[in-house]
């Protein structure tokens, strides 16, 4: 009898001890434990936007490298990345599965504007972080209404306003034509341009044409825009259609000052496919170092990136700036997870993501840093204009914030 009391109290003490230890070791939301952080992601590995698949592959490769090095605070990253084909209904299906069956701690770097719009409300209703979405739509910076969603790259509106300022300053009598994807991504560029031009927008924008991602080509739209008599063209398109547009503009002998959305300025996938000589003189904007720009070739940051790509992501095209973008996305997340320490709850993830102060990443342009706060969910706000010279992008001017 006495023995059993001793045994019971010993059991109670050991239980108390172990639960106490567990508390000391960490606080966890779903998908996190002493050994693992489970992260969900959707990517267009197939479908019309498949050129962006390299972002997901690079992120997976980066996390694999981090795990090889021992993980983050001793925890391995379990990165579950699924294909949604850039199709919003598929994104919803995949994300519900990631949240409800795989029980991921949060969603990271889900790619695409229409696809993220489709899961925006669901994730916020369920208080699951939709962290660092891989799209630049303006709506991600809305902490009041959507406290569980945060972007990373400069918003499309910011970028379009930078172009608008350039046009007002250098081409004050421009007649502008706009080719845009018929969804929130394309419309953000159009609206940003209008906002940046202010009351001149009505007069300066002489034609707009949109395309659907199911269209075989955008040739007809380009021809229509040329017919408007415009001498400036802004293209807000995903890589495949951007390449078609660049080629068609050249083929029909149109020579506008061409502004190209930064999400489709990859030398390796867009400029090469369009034909290098056809893209000479195009203006775009960047926040990351283009891997084809020779001025970075001898810097330690570039060499480290290249060594990482060669070792961990050997099948990827190292002339594709999206490989740099995916690398920077992964590094931003690692910084947030390190800051979380042993408190891996969904609340703390968002809190730490909203407390980044002047974070500098090796492959972001000099002068560009990441800052967030409880009321500011737009981590990168600056870009620098650049011009294509037939082989690479040449940066010019200064880093601009576009506000």
């Amino acid at each position, binding site marked *: 009898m006495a023995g059993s009391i001793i045994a019971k109290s010993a059991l109670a003490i050991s239980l108390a001890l172990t639960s106490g230890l567990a508390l000391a070791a960490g606080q966890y939301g779903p998908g996190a434990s002493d050994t693992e952080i489970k992260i969900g992601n959707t990517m267009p590995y197939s479908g019309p936007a498949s050129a962006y698949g390299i972002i997901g592959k690079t992120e997976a490769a980066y996390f694999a490298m981090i795990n090889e090095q021992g993980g983050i605070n001793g925890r391995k990253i379990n990165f579950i990345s699924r294909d949604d084909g850039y199709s919003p209904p598929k994104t919803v299906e995949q994300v519900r599965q990631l949240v409800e069956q795989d029980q991921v701690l949060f969603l990271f770097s889900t790619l695409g504007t229409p696809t993220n719009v489709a899961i925006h409300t669901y994730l916020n209703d369920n208080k699951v972080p939709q962290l660092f979405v891989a799209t630049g739509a303006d709506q991600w910076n809305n902490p009041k209404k959507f406290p569980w969603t945060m972007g990373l790259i400069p918003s499309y509106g910011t970028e379009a306003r930078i172009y608008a300022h350039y046009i007002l300053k250098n081409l004050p009598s421009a007649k502008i034509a706009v080719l845009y994807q018929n969804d929130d991504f394309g419309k953000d560029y159009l609206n940003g341009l209008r906002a940046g031009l202010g009351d001149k927008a009505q007069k300066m924008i002489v034609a707009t044409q949109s395309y659907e991602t199911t269209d075989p080509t955008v040739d007809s739209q380009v021809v229509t825009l040329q017919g408007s008599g415009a001498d400036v063209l802004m293209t807000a398109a995903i890589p495949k259609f951007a390449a078609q547009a660049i080629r068609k503009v050249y083929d*029909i002998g149109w020579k506008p000052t061409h502004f190209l959305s930064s999400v489709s300025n990859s030398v390796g996938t867009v400029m090469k496919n369009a034909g290098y000589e056809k893209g000479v003189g195009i203006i775009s904007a960047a926040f990351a170092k283009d891997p084809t720009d020779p001025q970075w070739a001898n810097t330690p940051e570039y060499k480290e990136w290249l060594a990482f790509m060669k070792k961990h992501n050997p099948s990827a095209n190292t002339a594709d700036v999206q490989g740099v973008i995916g690398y920077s996305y992964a590094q931003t997340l690692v910084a947030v997870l390190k800051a979380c320490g042993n408190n891996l709850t969904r609340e703390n993830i968002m809190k730490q993501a909203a407390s980044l102060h002047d974070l500098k990443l090796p492959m972001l342009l000099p002068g560009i840093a990441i800052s967030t706060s409880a009321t500011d969910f737009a981590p990168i706000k600056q870009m620098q204009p650049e011009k294509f010279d037939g082989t690479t992008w040449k940066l010019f001017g200064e880093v601009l914030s576009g506000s």
Partner: protein
Amino acid sequence: MHQFLQQIFSGLAAGAIYASVALALVMIYRATDLVNFAQGEMAMFSTYIAWTLVNAGLPFWAAFLITLAVSFVGGMAIERVLIRPVENAPVLAAVIVTIALLLIFNSTAGWLYSYTVQDFPSPFPDRPVFGALITTRDLGVIAVTLVMLAMLFIFFRFTATGLAMRAAAQNPESARLCGIPVGRMLAIGWGLAAAIGATAGIMVAPVLFLDPNMMGGVLIYAFAGALLGGITSPVGAVVGGLIVGVTENLVGTYLIASQLKLTVAFALIILVLVFKPNGLFGTAIIRRV
């Protein structure tokens, strides 16, 4: 005026692409009485074979001919292995098989070659001509489509195999009684359609860029073209394809917003089916019961 002409020429260039796929659809329909939903994906897959050969260092036209041969054999094999078992089943079964093929080819291409958008070499020089109305490459695509059409016409009208194939499709039983190997004719029909599709794929890849979804949008327009021209007529397929290409451009530019271009193709399909089910050049298929 210049813009109007430019829209027409752009439309002709796009229309030639639709026409070449429509030709392959007509080929299968004439040979086997089937609509092959996998036609576009088979063409895409053939194009990847050509792409692999070109990247391996073969000259373009050698790669082209090898691809045609491989596609011909592959098309015959598909008919023998996958279509033959459902030959006497309700037509829906065969439709399901071709839809399955569509998905299989699409995913296999993605798995083998990745979904990265690839540049594809064009056999024709790429120069704007006629006041930049059209490029020599687009003219090349149109020319190849017309050559294919002429060859098909000659094949069906003047060669013994072509005649036998028509007989086998129109009246299998009588054809068999006359000593025509109907089964072999059906297989040859699929082989030829696959080869035509391969040609179409190789011609359009430099324009659309090669990726596993290259033919997704094209197939819908090709259907519209084939139906408009009459699904039994090769001439109709080409004329129909060109009409669809020009119409979608003109309607999209001058009448409605360009967002509705795809809708134009569907509206055409519906209008044709309602008012002229046999298309412009098609012949009514009359069956004795």
